[in-house]
């Protein structure tokens, strides 16, 4: 595993506070060109694929959602999904991609 790259701009948004049992929306976004591998340069050379292949989200260490991404995901991927607020703690999201890309984001949530 390569170390995290804090230089890659990415963000996770979730409510800071929620009532127990609420269904909350989590939005994760990352700045990434998602080069498909189907494009060519003016000289006809194929531009190598460079995409994010996987997204995972853990809630206090337990995986609650994940996704496998293909080149048809637009540049600067955005993924929005939901979870039931069960307890206070951390939402940890991770992007994994070509060329050793590994980016982690986390946010805290207070559940009452």
């Amino acid at each position, binding site marked *: 595993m390569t170390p995290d790259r804090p230089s890659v701009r990415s963000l996770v948004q979730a409510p800071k506070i929620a009532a127990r049992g609420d*269904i909350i929306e989590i939005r994760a976004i990352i700045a990434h060109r998602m080069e*498909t591998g*189907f*494009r*060519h*340069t*003016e000289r006809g050379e194929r*531009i190598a694929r460079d995409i994010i292949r996987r997204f995972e989200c853990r*809630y206090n260490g*337990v*995986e*609650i*959602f*994940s*996704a*496998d*991404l*293909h*080149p*048809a*995901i*637009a*540049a*600067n*991927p*955005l*993924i*929005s*999904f*939901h*979870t*039931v607020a*069960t307890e206070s703690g951390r939402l940890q999201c991770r992007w994994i991609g070509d060329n050793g890309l590994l980016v982690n984001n986390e946010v805290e949530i207070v559940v009452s």
Partner: protein
Amino acid sequence: MKSKRRRFISASAAGLALVAVDRLHASPDRAQAALRAITRGAAPEEKRVELDIPPLVENGNLVVLNVRVQSPMTANDFVKTIYIVAEGNPLPNVITAHFTPRAGKAALSTRVRLSESQRVWAIAETNKGTFYSGQASTIVTLAACTEER
């Protein structure tokens, strides 16, 4: 050792197959093959899945896609996976999202690329192995993946 080598050989063969099909744009036939691979041959019922993409898209590089599946999302009855398949893209698979009952609702929003006017499918697989599907068609004015640099 042997099984490892076998796995490698079959993986290589799959890789070669991918390279071969990669030269063509997807046809509805290939998308149907992708759908059959997902459902393992079963015919999904066309209900419970709401797939929402704009009917007219100016730029195929950025198409907002929302999908929602009716499901109680309890431990005994939940949507395990949602697959998005684009009939006219060079690779039909777009995204595969994995859910747990803790999701609360089986819904996903993202932004996709569409290489031409086409039909997009959403397939939902429940924990019981039942498949449901929904579809949406769109007209794309400016296609994705045509530009050069």
